[in-house]
């Protein structure tokens, strides 16, 4: 077990290195002089030179990558071109809202999506199943900012149940914190719920046709016990997999959701950075999100052995 875990953890290191290399070299995928594009059309020669030095464009690629990687490993993500502040500090200031938003969305989505998928599979072909699957297709098609505006318009502007926009830190009390995040979490979670519900239903359908489910029913177990103990437990691996993969959807969606609901998180940071062409910040945020995604999927991989003891590597 420990051997397996350490092997799996070690195996993610090359992936992380490749991700780091890709994120670092994104700048060079684009045609033209990066410094000129960052500086904009009205830049003077000094501006160009300053940006070139700041980005290290005047030195060989591998040297720069090596240095950058070394710094990243020491928690130094470079300096923002626009504010001249360390990128790691800018990111640190914006972490709380984004983490809160993602965790709340994750929890809410799981609470809704898994029962939805289970019920749809249980009542396969019924009106309820069709309604849930219809919602799943819709949820996947309506972009996150559309859901966001719709929710904000109905619940904040028209009904005035919740604040329209903004963010209150958790330190200022749980209720105001939740009030500000709930609409954005629902908006962000819609596509995620659709994804998880679909996979849950599909996996449950497969599991429900197994012999041991028939046996469980035959020996007189209640419907709930069959569904949630016998069936869902055996459907856990694909569900957990899609929960992990779907985190990418959440991360992409968070960027937009934070813009719609004016939440001062990492998404806003990267959007502002794009408008100012503040490349070190963009690089830092993309790297952080990607590495988090790799770690999330590593955890999912490790969960497999817990959820399904038959899986041994």
């Amino acid at each position, binding site marked *: 077990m420990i051997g397996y875990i350490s092997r799996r953890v070690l195996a993610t290191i090359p992936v992380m290195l490749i991700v780091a290399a890709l994120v670092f070299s994104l700048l060079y995928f684009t045609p033209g002089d990066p410094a000129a594009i960052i500086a904009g059309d009205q830049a003077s020669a000094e501006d160009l030179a300053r940006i070139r030095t700041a980005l290290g464009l005047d030195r060989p690629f591998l040297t720069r990558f090596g240095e950058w990687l070394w710094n990243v490993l020491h928690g130094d993500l470079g300096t923002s071109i626009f504010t001249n502040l360390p990128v790691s500090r800018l990111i640190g200031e914006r972490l709380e809202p984004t983490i809160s938003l993602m965790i709340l969305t994750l929890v809410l989505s799981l609470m809704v999506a898994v029962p939805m998928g289970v019920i749809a599979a249980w009542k396969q072909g019924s009106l309820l199943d069709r309604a849930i699957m219809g919602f799943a297709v819709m949820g996947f098609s309506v972009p996150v900012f559309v859901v966001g505006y719709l929710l904000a318009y109905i619940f904040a502007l028209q009904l005035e149940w919740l604040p329209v926009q903004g963010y209150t830190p958790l330190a200022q009390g749980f209720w105001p914190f939740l009030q500000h995040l709930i609409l954005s979490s629902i908006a962000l979670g819609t596509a995620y719920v659709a994804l998880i519900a679909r996979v849950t239903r599909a996996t449950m359908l497969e599991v429900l046709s197994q012999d041991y489910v028939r046996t469980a029913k035959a020996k007189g177990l209640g419907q709930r016990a069959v569904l949630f103990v016998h069936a869902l437990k055996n459907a856990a691996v694909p569900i957990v997999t899609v929960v992990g993969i779907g985190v990418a959807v959440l*991360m992409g969606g968070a960027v937009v959701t934070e813009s719609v609901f004016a939440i001062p998180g990492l998404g806003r940071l990267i959007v502002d950075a794009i408008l100012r062409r503040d490349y070190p910040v963009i690089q830092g945020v993309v790297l952080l999100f990607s590495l988090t995604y790799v770690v999330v999927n590593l955890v999912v991989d490790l969960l497999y052995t817990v959820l399904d003891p038959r899986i041994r590597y």
Partner: protein
Amino acid sequence: MSVVTQTDPLSQTTAAPPLPDILPPPKQRGRIMRFYVGHPAIAIGGLLIGIMVLIAVCAPLLGTVDPTALAPAKRTRPPSALYWFGTDMLGRDVYSRVIYGTRVSIVVGGAVALLASAIGMLIGLISGFTRWLDPIIMRIMDGMMSIPSVLLAIALVAFTRGSIQNVIIAITLAEVPRVARLVRGVVLSLRDQPYVEAAVTAGSRTPMIIWRHIMPNTLAPMTVQATYICASAMITEAILSFIGAGTPTTTPSWGNIMAEGRALWQVKPYIVFFPAVFLSITVLAVNLLGDGLRDALDPRLAKRL
């Protein structure tokens, strides 16, 4: 794979004698109708996409005015008989902008689906057939897939001057790894099939094997994948334009119309509402088509998802 019939090299040389024509001519129209009735998702999705393409092509004929014409005196008019979807804060006609915006979404969705399929197919084939390159290519694809695709596209467009072309390139790059993995998977599963081994033994060259035996088998899953890529490309384009990193504001797109309406959405929600509805319906149509195609082309997959 039910849709593709295998042609083995031997049947090429000894053509079967034509069958006597004793069957009644198939009622073509009836069969097509029955297909659509049996697959309502394809019918509805296809119809809606057809309408959207028509809107995109015929934009100048649909009672639109110049979507970029400024009229500061007629700012933020609510929807009326004259301005069907109202006007924005620069007095531009929102209806015309939304109608012309259809073009951007259709072009981006279509172009990304085609480009990502073609490039991904190429990479997947190379990877599947070149054993020493395979681990290298696949690790790079894994790395690219570890960067959430919206963020990858954002990072790529952030460094180009905003243009539809650059948006297409950025989204394509973000979508390629998924196609490459799919195609590679098909190649690996087919490479050891008896009929492929037979073709190898019979002396077929690799390009011929790919063209005759591998490519036809990727067609069904690729078509389904391409529709999903099209849908996700449309959403990503809208996201990029919405956060100000996509289609330049001189070209109306659903994303940038919403971006410009954002400042006023609490008082003038219609500026955001109409492009949102168009975008949602179009993406829904493409997803419906994808689901329908998946069910029709691969019944085994349909059962699983």
